[in-house]
Every structure is written in structure tokens, then in C-alpha cells.
């Protein structure tokens, strides 16, 4: 099964959220497109949520050959 670890989903979702939301500022400043904030936030959450869900059920993403997680502390 191609499953991504819970930790990977959490970290990836955090990064994806920030990146997608920052794109709104980039669109506004660079291209001058004024997106609706509520709509854009909903869109961001939807993208992040769907990606996380897809990762969780193994629709997308593959685990590396070795387990990526171990205890280091």
C-alpha cells in the first residue's frame, strides 16, 4: 500500500496551506487580481483538505523504500 505517514501529511498540509494562501498575495501584488478573501480561504482549505485526504487513503503519494520515520530523541 502506498501510504504517507500521518506526520508527513501534517507537515505537508501546513506547507501547502501557507504556499496556497501566499499565492493570493502574489496574485494581488504582481498581477493585480483581487480575489475574494473568504472564497480564497475556503479554496485553500479545500485544496489542503483534499490533498491530505488523498494522501491518507493512499490515492496519491508513495512511501520510500525504507520507513521514513524513526525515533531520534
Amino acid at each position, binding site marked *: 500500500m502506498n501510504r504517507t505517514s500521518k506526520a508527513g501529511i501534517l507537515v505537508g498540509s501546513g506547507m501547502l496551506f501557507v504556499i496556497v494562501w501566499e499565492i493570493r498575495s502574489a496574485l494581488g*501584488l*504582481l498581477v493585480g487580481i483581487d480575489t475574494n478573501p473568504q472564497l480564497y480561504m475556503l479554496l485553500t482549505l479545500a485544496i489542503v483538505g483534499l490533498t491530505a485526504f488523498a494522501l491518507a487513503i493512499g490515492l496519491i503519494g508513495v512511501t520510500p*523504500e*525504507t*520507513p521514513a520515520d*524513526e525515533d531520534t530523541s
Partner: protein
Amino acid sequence: MSGENTVREIGHDEFDPYGTLALILIYFAILSVMWVFMYFVEFLGNDLTVLA
């Protein structure tokens, strides 16, 4: 010397960090584009240029 999860040892001479190179070239491109945008559009395109 390496962690428990090492599946292979890679020495200095056999290691080409091409992934790093790719990432850093992307960073370089972003920085260049953003700089040009910030300087020429946001700054020089802004009102009230200070002349003296």
C-alpha cells in the same frame, strides 16, 4: 557513523547533490523575478519619487 536508517553509505566523491542544485536554482529564479518586480514595479512605479 550514520543513523540506524541508513540503507547505503555515500561518500563525498560519489555524491552529487543535484536535487539541491535544482531547488536552489528555483530559489534563484524566484529571487530574481521578485527583485525585478519589487524594484521596477512596486518601487519605481510608486508615487513621489525622491529627487534630492
